[in-house]
């Protein structure tokens, strides 16, 4: 037989497609061609595979080798096809017998060792979903591959080891050091809410945001603890449920920001892009099939924009789609990639360019037109989606620290549990996701509850969408206080929380 075949996986965004790798060896002048829409990094696989095969002590077949990656119309990229190409070629040369239905993933080093690749988790998940649970991955990716339920993952440290397993006559170098990527283990600094002095209102706001998954805007002069508070929000959030953890881990695996040694990511991620970030870096981008950006890496976690008015308008506007739909669809010439992006948005801003326009704003040196322009960037459609807006004032010497993270996180867990009980049987999990109509139906017969809202609506300080959003926050406040339904006080508080900053 002059035809060798095996399987690999091509990733488009987070979606994996099973790819047939076929190698045909024709008795003609030696050549090696790769067809099936490979991109530049995949075309280089030819040179890597050839070097790796000869370095492993296997003879390179002097034939006209045509490797086809089928379906040939699906664009493919990356180095994860190296192992499959090598196995198919050697099988075609009858140097080994490739077992049917086994998926091969991995990049080859020139000396024949196997290097880890990105995106192993979604790739293995796709293979399992396609009914091919037997997967060979680089040793350094084995822990990640084994996270997929139902996967029969086998690790290999070199091409020679794989070939020997399949019956090739080759010496397996037992001293092969597997390529292990040293992840810089980020020693997660213990961020405790007790570190924040004063700011009782802001801390309560943070608790409400954590309990209901509401977006949050903090306005205050420099040095009042906006950044500190935002960095402590993930600590208040409960662990991710398993389905979410798999999804979040898959995104981070594709983005290359994930240490498989730690298992699935179960803590909500925290992303704080610098304000010079480009739209492509926030929503995802890159040539060929785009890669996930900060918004997708913050999926099921917190996306924190410090100095939000300093971000370019384009970046702020691109966030509207994920805020609405919870996912990002990035279209490029080679195809569209779909990444989840259901994050909790936290914005921090100074009240004006000089940062001193708090209270009566007597210290502020900005012109009114400067102030308007500064905040104008945030206002409008984006700010309308932010449920909680809080103004921070400089702390006083006598201010005391509040509850520790563990205490607040406990209250958040109870409130989330209450919300989950109420929302059982619906597709929503936190108060922030629920449509307004559903909330109004549950409010009961007491019409006076909506009285304040109706007045705000008539005065024009609240939009119709704003009414729904105030109701969501009111339900979260009721959950936090252990009430079955919001009272008039809860609705008043929610209205206050929404309009206290620059929004009113």
């Amino acid at each position: 037989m002059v035809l060798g075949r095996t399987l690999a996986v091509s990733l488009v965004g987070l979606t994996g497609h099973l790819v047939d790798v076929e190698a045909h060896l024709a008795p003609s002048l030696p050549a090696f061609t790769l067809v099936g829409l490979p991109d530049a990094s995949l075309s280089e696989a030819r040179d890597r595979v050839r070097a790796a095969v000869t370095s492993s002590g296997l003879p390179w077949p002097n034939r006209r080798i045509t490797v086809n990656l089928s379906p040939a119309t699906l664009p493919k990229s990356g180095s994860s096809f190296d192992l499959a190409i090598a196995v198919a070629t050697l099988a075609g040369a009858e140097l080994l017998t490739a077992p049917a239905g086994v998926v091969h993933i991995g990049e080859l080093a020139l000396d024949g060792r196997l290097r880890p690749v990105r995106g192993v988790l979604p790739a293995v998940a796709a293979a399992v979903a396609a009914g091919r649970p037997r997967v060979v991955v680089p040793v350094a990716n084995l822990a990640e591959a084994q996270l997929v339920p139902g996967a029969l993952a086998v690790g290999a440290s070199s091409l020679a080891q794989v070939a020997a397993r399949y019956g090739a006559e080759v010496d397996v170098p037992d001293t092969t050091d597997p390529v292990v990527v040293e992840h810089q283990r980020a020693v997660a600094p213990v961020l405790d809410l007790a570190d924040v002095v004063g700011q009782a209102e802001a801390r309560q706001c943070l608790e409400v945001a954590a309990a209901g998954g509401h977006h949050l805007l903090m306005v205050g002069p420099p040095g009042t603890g906006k950044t500190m508070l935002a960095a402590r929000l993930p600590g208040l959030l409960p662990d991710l449920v398993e389905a979410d953890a798999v999804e979040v881990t898959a995104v981070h695996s594709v983005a290359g920001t994930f240490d498989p040694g730690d298992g699935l990511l179960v803590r909500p991620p925290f992303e704080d892009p610098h304000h010079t970030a480009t739209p492509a870096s926030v929503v995802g981008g890159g040539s060929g099939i785009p890669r996930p950006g900060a918004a997708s890496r913050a999926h099921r976690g917190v996306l924190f924009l410090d100095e939000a008015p300093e971000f370019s308008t384009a970046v702020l506007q691109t966030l509207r789609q994920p805020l609405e739909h919870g996912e990002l669809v990035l279209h490029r010439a080679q195809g569209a990639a779909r990444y989840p992006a259901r994050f909790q948005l936290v914005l921090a801003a100074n009240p004006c360019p000089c940062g001193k326009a708090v209270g009566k704003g007597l210290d502020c040196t900005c012109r009114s037109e400067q102030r308007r322009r500064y905040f104008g960037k945030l206002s409008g459609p984006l700010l309308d989606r932010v449920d909680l807006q809080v103004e921070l004032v400089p702390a006083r010497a006598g201010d005391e620290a509040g509850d520790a993270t563990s205490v607040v996180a406990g209250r958040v867990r109870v409130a989330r549990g209450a919300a989950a009980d109420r929302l059982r049987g619906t597709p929503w999990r936190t108060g922030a996701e629920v449509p307004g109509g559903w909330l109004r139906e549950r409010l009961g017969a007491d019409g006076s509850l909506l009285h304040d809202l109706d007045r705000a609506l008539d005065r024009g300080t609240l939009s119709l969408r704003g009414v729904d959003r105030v109701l969501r926050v009111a339900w979260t406040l009721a959950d936090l206080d252990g009430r079955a339904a919001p009272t008039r006080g809860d609705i008043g508080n929610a209205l206050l929380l929404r309009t206290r900053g620059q929004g009113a």
Partner: protein
Amino acid sequence: MRAKDAVGRYGEDVAERHLLAAGWRVLDRNWRCRDGELDLVGMDGDELVVVEVKTRRSAAYGSPAEAVTRLKLARVRRLAAQWLAAHDVRAASVRVDVIAVILPRSGAAVVDHLVGVV
């Protein structure tokens, strides 16, 4: 005669014996004209075959077949037309083969016959 020429000539001898053993008629060997040289011309049944023979003493610098470039094959093809013009041979078709010969330091020569490479 230089050593590499001797190797080449010996390789052509090996290739010729290989073709004769396969039942070919060898019509010409080292046919020269102004544009170059054809190593072997033979008849495989009623098909005229122009053979390029490439010989090496080891595969250390790659298989000899790899050294037959596209440019070289284009010239062989052109020469085949000239050979046909100069000889009165009626062939059903014409093709170009490459025979790669490796002459190890000890043991028999290894012949790799690549059929119809153009």
